[in-house]
Structure formats: structure tokens, C-alpha cells
């Protein structure tokens, strides 16, 4: 068991050992990246108007909406500066159209398998605790669930007072069911979920126990409140921490730079906040194609997918003028990418650079889980 406070009486022989603080590491004990919702490379607001595999505003956090929803533009996701003491930001979901149908909606955080190694205990898994701050205009129960490829555990916390930040914790007991987990992979083997509403097949059979997912695919508690039952309902969350042990310790704050770099392992976006920012230089391979290289700020989890704002936001600058690319291609690895630009009338071997020609262009690389 970890301790939230170390006192002189807890140090038995005058020497501070791991056992004195309960076995949990003192730093980097929070397995959640961007738990304080400060990083939002994709933007600070997004309104959902069609089904999708999930929507991300705060980095690493995925709002997922399953089943049939009522109307269009159901919800708006935002990064907010409303936060409890000790925090600067939160992630907020606001309901635009009341949702009462059969759905399973939740906020999900996927853990990279090799980063869950601290949870490993022989062939099983240690106990761990999830703590967070939550605020809503609706009082009621919110599911907190942990899901793996072969087992899951669902419980809930109760929001007791409307429009008030409340601190919540949920402890997940050790289990021997976590067999077969490969802690060396860069893929995901588990996720933490916070429920917004649930019904039908999204409900777990039994709360507060580890359930075999081969026979029980539900994930949300039967006690889950529908936080999306009326227009302007909202749920805000921040300060999420997942740590080994049965006691929640204070949130582990990390520097902005460290947290940004951690997020960039999964997603990197280069916004051109001022026109003229270069995104790469290279040479014309022939009269119609030129290559530039692009280095990622950190090694990404896997070779990422590329997206950008549009070819019209970029220009090809060379010795005697400017060209506009009519097409582009990308070959990416974990550390960088080769970007190909289709132009006309280029001189083979001539050097060039590509930059943004306005203040709205961006290029992004996605290696999310």
C-alpha cells in the first residue's frame, strides 16, 4: 500500500526505504499523460456533428460516443481554464442536444502497454488507484472503469454537489486475471474510462469485480447517471492520476515542456502562427517532384499518419520564384518523414524550401493509440 504522507514514525529504522512510502515510486508515478489537460495541440474546441471513432481536444484523451445519437452537433468539447486550485485547465463536454437513446458515451484514456509495466505483479497485476477532479451541473454517479483486452473492472463515484469541483478516487484491486499481457509492446493493452451515460449492452454485468471480457463486454456501471439528458448539461474533468497502490497521492505535476514532449510521442502538430514559417527544405528529384524532410520533435510511438490544412496553405520557394504544389505524398517513420511535393517545370537537383503562406496553415502527425 502506498502512503500519502511519510512521517518519522513510519520510518522504522532511521533509513528511508521503499517500504516506508509503501513501495510506490516518488516521481513519475502518474501513468497518465496530460492528466491536467494543459496540452491541446489540436485546438481548444470541437463540436461533434457525425459519428466517428472518437474526438480529441486535450491531448491523449478521447471522447467516444457509441450508438445512435439524437440530432446533429450533439456536444461541444472544449479545453477550459476553469479548474480547481492547483490546476489551470480542464476538459469539458457540453450537451447541445439532449441524449436519451441507447448509447454508451465516455471519456477514454489509452495506455501504451510498455508504460503499464509498474502495474505488473508476477503473472497478474497490482492494485492501483485512479484519482481526479470532476464538476457537473448534474449530480449523480459517474463510472470509472479499467478495461484490458481480456478483463475489465467497473465502479463509480458520486458527484454530490452541482457546479462544484469535487475530488474523487477509485481503487482497483490486484488481480490474477491479467495474464498474457505483453508489457513490452508499443500498442495499447488497457484504457481508463469515465462514463457520461450508458444503457443496453454498454452496461457491465457486475460492478466492483474483475470481469472476463470474453463473456462480459460491458464497461459502464449500472449506476451510471445520464449526464447528457438535457441541453447545456456539462461535465468537466482534470487532475487525473493513475498510480500503483490503494491510496491516492497528490497529483504529480510535471513541467509543461516534459508533458508536451510526452504528448508528442502520440501526436505532433506544427501550427503556423505567423506566415512564413518553414516546414522543410530539400531538392527537386525531377521536373515534377521535390522532396523535403521533416524531423519530429520526439520519436513517435509508431510511424504516424500525416494530415495538413491544405496544399493552398503552403508554397514552394526556390532560387528564382515560388511554385504551388498540386499534390503531396508522405513516407513517414518514427523519427521523421519524407514529404513529396508535386509541381511543374522544376529543375532537377535545384534546392527549395516549403513554408506556410498564411497564418492558418498546419501540418500534423498522428501516432495515437
Amino acid at each position, binding site marked *: 500500500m502506498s502512503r500519502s504522507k511519510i512521517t518519522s514514525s513510519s520510518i522504522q529504522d532511521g533509513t528511508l526505504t521503499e517500504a516506508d512510502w509503501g513501495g510506490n515510486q516518488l516521481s513519475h508515478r502518474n501513468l497518465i499523460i496530460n492528466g491536467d489537460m494543459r496540452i491541446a495541440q489540436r485546438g481548444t474546441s470541437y463540436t461533434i456533428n457525425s459519428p466517428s*471513432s472518437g474526438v480529441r481536444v486535450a491531448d491523449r484523451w478521447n471522447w467516444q460516443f457509441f450508438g445512435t445519437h439524437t440530432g446533429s452537433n450533439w456536444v461541444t468539447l472544449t479545453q477550459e481554464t476553469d479548474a480547481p486550485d492547483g490546476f489551470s485547465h480542464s476538459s469539458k463536454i457540453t450537451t447541445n442536444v439532449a441524449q436519451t437513446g441507447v448509447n454508451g458515451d465516455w471519456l477514454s484514456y489509452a495506455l501504451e502497454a510498455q508504460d503499464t509495466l509498474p502495474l505488473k505483479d508476477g503473472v497478474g497485476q497490482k492494485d492501483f488507484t485512479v484519482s481526479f477532479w470532476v464538476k457537473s451541473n448534474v449530480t449523480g454517479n459517474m463510472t470509472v472503469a479499467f478495461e484490458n483486452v481480456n478483463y475489465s473492472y467497473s465502479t463509480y463515484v458520486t458527484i454530490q454537489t452541482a457546479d462544484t469541483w469535487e475530488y474523487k478516487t477509485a481503487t482497483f484491486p490486484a488481480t490474477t486475471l491479467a495474464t498474457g499481457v505483453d508489457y513490452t509492446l508499443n500498442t495499447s493493452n488497457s484504457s481508463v474510462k469515465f462514463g457520461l451515460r450508458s444503457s443496453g449492452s454498454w452496461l457491465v454485468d457486475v460492478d466492483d469485480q474483475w470481469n472476463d471480457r470474453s463473456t462480459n463486454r460491458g464497461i459502464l456501471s449500472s449506476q451510471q447517471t445520464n449526464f447528457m439528458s438535457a441541453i447545456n448539461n456539462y461535465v468537466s474533468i482534470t487532475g487525473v492520476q493513475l498510480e500503483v497502490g490503494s491510496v491516492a497521492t497528490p497529483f504529480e505535476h510535471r513541467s509543461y515542456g516534459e508533458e508536451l514532449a510526452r504528448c508528442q510521442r502520440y501526436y505532433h502538430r506544427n501550427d503556423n502562427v505567423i506566415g512564413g514559417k518553414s516546414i522543410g527544405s530539400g531538392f527537386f528529384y*525531377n521536373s515534377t517532384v521535390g522532396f523535403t524532410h521533416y524531423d519530429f520533435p520526439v520519436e513517435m510511438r*509508431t*510511424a504516424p*499518419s500525416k*494530415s495538413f490544412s491544405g496544399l493552398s496553405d503552403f508554397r514552394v520557394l526556390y532560387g528564382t520564384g515560388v511554385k504551388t504544389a498540386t499534390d503531396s505524398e508522405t*513516407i513517414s517513420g518514427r523519427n521523421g518523414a519524407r514529404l513529396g511535393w508535386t509541381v511543374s517545370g522544376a529543375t532537377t537537383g535545384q534546392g527549395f524550401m516549403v513554408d506556410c503562406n498564411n497564418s492558418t496553415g498546419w501540418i500534423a502527425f498522428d501516432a495515437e493509440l
Partner: protein
Amino acid sequence: MDEMIITNAKYRIDVISGDNASINATIDGVEMSIPLVEGNRHYDEIMRQVDAGTLTIAEAE
């Protein structure tokens, strides 16, 4: 479970090697260039939908 909505999937050729090097597709409304690498969630989902017979990847021109 709602899945990625993938349209306009098409292989792209590396102009140097002449081999397929990536897939261009629109995923959840965003145009993307996807590497042919297992573990990339977009590539994995494209292949899952191809195997399920619900998606076809056009050959490169």
C-alpha cells in the same frame, strides 16, 4: 461500436522505388496519408475493414 469512417482509400507509390508506400484516405472527415505499418491505428483499421469486406483500397495511378 462506432468505427472509423474511411473513404477514398488509395495506395500511393514511392516515385523512387515504384512500390506502394502509403495510403491516402479520408478518415472521420480528415484527409490523411497513412504509412503501411502495423501498429498505426489508421492502417490497422483500414486493413480490418478490408478483411471484413467493407472497404477497398484503390490501386495507385
